[in-house]
């Protein structure tokens, strides 16, 4: 069924332990081809650059990741057109990002940060410069991975799931309608008189 809204990964806060397995899996998934990351940590030659950020507070822990907003403020403010919508997803094109931080300012959740940008195990240099480039890094829902978001698969507590909010809303509508139908059937005084 066609989904009009962008999907996003939602966390069951009661299940999340804050272990950061999602961050490692996210990094691995995005760097197998780009930076030759294998199955073991010994194959990692670059800084770990995830696209979601585990946040631990006194009462809970959860990864903060992009909600793929329909009216994306990050996309709206990006003057380089480095943030685009592909299908329903909001995606960063790192090669265009100049590290201006406007998207960090715009995102109300802090779901984006600037991280080192490596290709083939080497840091990408700034244009015309010798210094290493940074690029905006945020969830892309593992767009290139046929198995879907790596974080969801890696979570040892099954705390993460891809949320289809439109489907969820319809499910809630149906459940509410079913409940109301029963209530109304048993309460003739609530029927509108002809």
């Amino acid at each position, binding site marked *: 069924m066609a989904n009009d809204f962008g999907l996003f990964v939602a966390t069951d806060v009661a299940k999340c332990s*804050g272990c950061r397995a999602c961050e490692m899996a996210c990094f691995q998934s995005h760097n197998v081809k780009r930076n030759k990351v*294998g199955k073991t*940590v*010994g*194959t990692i030659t670059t*800084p*770990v650059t995830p696209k979601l950020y585990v946040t*631990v507070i006194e009462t809970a822990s959860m990864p903060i990741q992009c909600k793929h907003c329909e009216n994306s403020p990050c996309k709206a403010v990006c003057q380089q057109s480095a943030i685009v919508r592909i299908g329903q997803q909001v995606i960063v094109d790192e090669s265009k990002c100049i590290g201006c931080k406007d998207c960090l300012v715009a995102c109300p959740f802090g779901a984006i940060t600037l991280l*080192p940008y490596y290709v083939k195990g080497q840091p990408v240099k700034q244009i015309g410069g010798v210094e290493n480039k940074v690029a905006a890094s945020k969830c892309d829902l593992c767009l290139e991975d046929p198995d879907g978001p790596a974080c969801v698969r890696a979570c040892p507590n099954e705390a993460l799931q891809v949320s289809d909010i439109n489907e969820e809303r319809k499910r809630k509508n149906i459940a509410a309608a079913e409940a109301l139908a029963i209530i109304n059937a048993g309460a003739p005084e609530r029927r509108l008189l002809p």
Partner: protein
Amino acid sequence: MSVVIAIDQDLCTGCQECTKICPNLAIEGLPRQPQKINDTKCVMCGQCVQKCKSYVSVAEHGFGAYAKVRKARGLPATVTEPLFAAYNVCHLDEVLRALEDPKVETWVQSAPAVRVGIAEDFGAPLGTLAAGKLAAGLRRLGFNKVFDVNYAADVTIMEEGSELIDRLKNNGTLPMFTSCCPAWVRYLELNYPELRHHLSTTKSPQQIQGALVKTYGAKTQKTDPKKIFSVSIMPCTCKQYESGRPEMVDSGQRDVDVVLTTRELGYLLKLKGVDFLSLPEEKFDLPMGDYTGAAEIFGVTGGVMEAALRTGYELVTGQPIPAVDIKAVRGPNGFRTADIQVGELTLKVGVVTGLKNVKPVLEDLKAGKLSLHFLEVMSCPQGCVTGGGQPKLIVEKDFEMAYKARTEATYVHDRELPVRKSHENPSVKKLYDSFLKKPLGEESHKLLHTTYCGDPKSHH
């Protein structure tokens, strides 16, 4: 006792994933607060090191944090892999100093599981068998002798197999427990000291190799034992502790000077620019690098049992064992038993893998609900191939695949080796003919056997 396993208080998020798998409840702390290891309970198996995912991150700790933590842990600047909250203390600097000192004779020996793990950290598929490249890589690093712990594993079988037969014949304490796994030995000493006489007095292959290197090895290689710096490469974080046990000095000095894990060997190879996967296949040095298939399977659960049975059967019956592959003791289950017919005796054997599975077995033995002659125990999930010092998987979903691949590679190596029974190892035969004379003999007792907590020879 120096610290072996630690949790970095600045990195730990308090997720307690390690707490869930710690076999001796040694990790303490509140949820979402940094956890601490209780050193009086830790058995140093290193499974928490394998589990931990809380790493030094640019986003969380800043751009300069990684290099600082790497330096604080004594790791060379060529290390690029992520650094996690739970880690084992690294002794690479001691090995580097020894390798650079021309007056020091550096002798190295590797455990069986190292050769089915090390290539993974260079990007090879999980469970790639790299015995020949391992020998070549150690030689490129400048070690003067490239021996192998598998040689000592064959000696272990000669001693431990003979010990079992002796216990059976002379009403010794049964069941006999294997003593190769130092985390298991420590667990038993901490929790069931009354059962210590069940532990085989035969030392682990690492410590047998250590004791022989500085006596028999020094003699045959015409080297002053005081000049030898003996390095073990192990899939295990607990072997460093074992080598440091006060009683492990039977050669007259510290038998094993320092232990590196499989992962740390990877750091060393990368530091020295050794392109591991391009290395040729080379042999280990003789005589103490000569080994059989029986020794190789020490790396997998059930392997010590199978190796002991291959030799024990022939020592007892005088006949060749009908099938060298003893599949009844193989498999991934946490506890399994088998009845093995050895001549007129039905030998009842048990195999435990994963230290969490041992408690009910010990309780049943104590309560008389379980009757066994011989019990193998390995602390890690599927034996040493899944040890705390093995290459660490990035995602947990790959654990099972890695365990299976490393186990299969170990059995492949066993099948391919020309000799598959410890007592047929020609270099081990020579060791007994020229030096030890016989298993359980005077020299063996001095060098190759030990005692446990509370016993006179022990300093604990």
